[in-house]
């Protein structure tokens, strides 16, 4: 690759410097600080040397940490799976069965809920699903149930349900974009070569749209695994996830080293899952070329 002319490099660096300095000071340094804290000792709001890996050893030895991580992971993966599976037919419908000039309108309709207050949407589910909520009242007045269902207290399933609803629109767009890129003549070629419409879908369309599916999975997975509001509101706060636990460790217990170590491990976990997604994507892109 050609080296960069020095004047161009200088102009580029100068231009990006305000943004770069901002993120270095307010993002990179704090993250580095958390990393350093995670290897220090202390508690109750102070930290001290020497550097140690004791905090990580404790994470490893006490099952509660693993439980929180695993639970968050499973919740996020379930939500990811549900949203992607539900979103695919929708994206497929808009891409293949909607007239080109109407596509924007459909996408617009699908995206609007995503841009309307997340807090209100989640809180509404609390009102709907909670004890004596709209759902309970409706079910009881219709005579379907005679006691409170109080779905909200069902913990993990309720969390998954609410998160799946909250992040559903995220999944449609990337899948739609990848479906739009599928050359329509490939499908005709598939059928021309004697495959049925369904097999053509399985052998041509689905593999070609996998990059979009994986992008969708990533886009849903990352915010859900770190979601704070839903576990706090739904499930009566009895099923904390990563974000809630970090809050407890850092702000309530004020154990900076331990909380930092947990944050670092969480980041690592999210990072590893993301990398797996990306690698999967590479394979599909590589395979389709």
């Amino acid at each position, binding site marked *: 690759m050609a080296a960069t002319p020095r004047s161009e490099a200088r102009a580029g660096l100068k*231009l990006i410097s305000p943004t770069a300095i901002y993120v270095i000071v307010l993002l990179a340094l704090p993250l580095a600080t958390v990393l350093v804290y995670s290897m220090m000792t202390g508690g109750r709001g102070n930290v001290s040397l020497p550097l140690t890996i004791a905090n990580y050893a404790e994470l490893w030895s006490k099952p509660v940490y693993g439980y929180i991580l695993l639970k968050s992971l499973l919740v996020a993966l379930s939500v990811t799976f549900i949203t992607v599976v539900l979103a695919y*037919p929708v994206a497929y419908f808009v891409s293949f069965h909607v007239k080109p000039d109407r596509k924007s309108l459909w996408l617009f309709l699908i995206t609007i809920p995503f841009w309307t207050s997340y807090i209100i949407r989640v809180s509404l589910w609390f009102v709907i699903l909670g004890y004596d909520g709209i759902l309970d009242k409706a079910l009881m007045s219709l005579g379907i149930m005679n006691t409170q269902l109080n779905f909200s207290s069902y913990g993990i399933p309720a969390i998954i349900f609410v998160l799946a609803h909250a992040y559903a629109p995220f999944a449609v767009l990337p899948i739609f974009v990848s479906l739009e890129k599928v050359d329509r003549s490939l499908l005709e070629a598939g059928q021309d070569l004697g495959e049925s419409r369904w097999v053509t879908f399985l052998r041509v369309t689905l593999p070609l749209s996998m990059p979009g599916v994986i992008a969708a999975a990533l886009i849903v997975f990352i915010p859900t695994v770190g979601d704070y509001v839903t576990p706090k509101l739904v499930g009566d706060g009895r099923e904390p996830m990563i974000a809630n636990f970090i809050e407890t460790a850092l702000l309530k217990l004020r154990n900076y080293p331990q909380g930092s170590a947990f944050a670092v491990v969480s980041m690592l976990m999210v990072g590893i899952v993301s990398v797996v997604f990306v690698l999967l994507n590479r394979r599909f892109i590589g395979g389709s070329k």
Partner: protein
Amino acid sequence: MKAPWLRGFTLFYLLFLYSPILLLPIFAFNDSKVVSFPLSGFTTNWFVEMWADKNLRIAAKNSLIIALSVATLSTILGIFAARASVRYRFPGKAPLMGLIMLPLVLPEMIVAMSLLVVLLSIGVPLSLLTVIMGQVLICTPFAVAILTSAFQSLDRSLEEAALDLGETQWSTFRLIILPLVMPGILASFLICFTISFDEFIIANFLGSGRPILSVYIFGQFRFPSKVPSMLALGTVLVCFSIILLGFAEYMRRRGIAKAGGKDAGGFL
């Protein structure tokens, strides 16, 4: 190719997406303190109560200050980064852009907490300013994404043509580049504004209990008596969001039409 079941499924999906939002206006105008069916009559009392809520007004004002500041700052930082990454090659570009976009793939709680830990350690008092500082971090990647595509759709030779016709770097930026990416700048501003206005985690933890709309709403929903007026507020907010988004989409399309390109789909 008709696909009735696909269409049916999509409509059902939309209903699922919209169901809680549809309940908003229904109960916002329902004349009952208890949020449940059957409905008991029409009232605008909840809107009146919402309007009279002094704390709510303070929270809304704070949220507006934050969202306007965040949208402005993020868009400006986004312009710098997007322009630099589209136009120039320079050492360290990939890691720098990676760092700028990092909050997209980082749980927000971790962004908030790492910043909070540092702010507490060096003794910076929490305020609206610290909320703005944090939210700019998570909004900038969105601004960069939107603006990058705006800058990319600019033909490089337009710039060269202006230089060739006697303009300077700066007047070229002012006369050619800025007008052509203006729709992207507006879209970025609106989307950052919306994200900031909605944002909860940073507002909650870096705001140190200051009344900020999302935090206030979150708190009020715990009191059943406050729920109806919150629904009224929600109705108003949803209407605002739709208007803002409609405007953003309109600007985006106008931008594409101006640059002579083709519509490649929605946001992001």
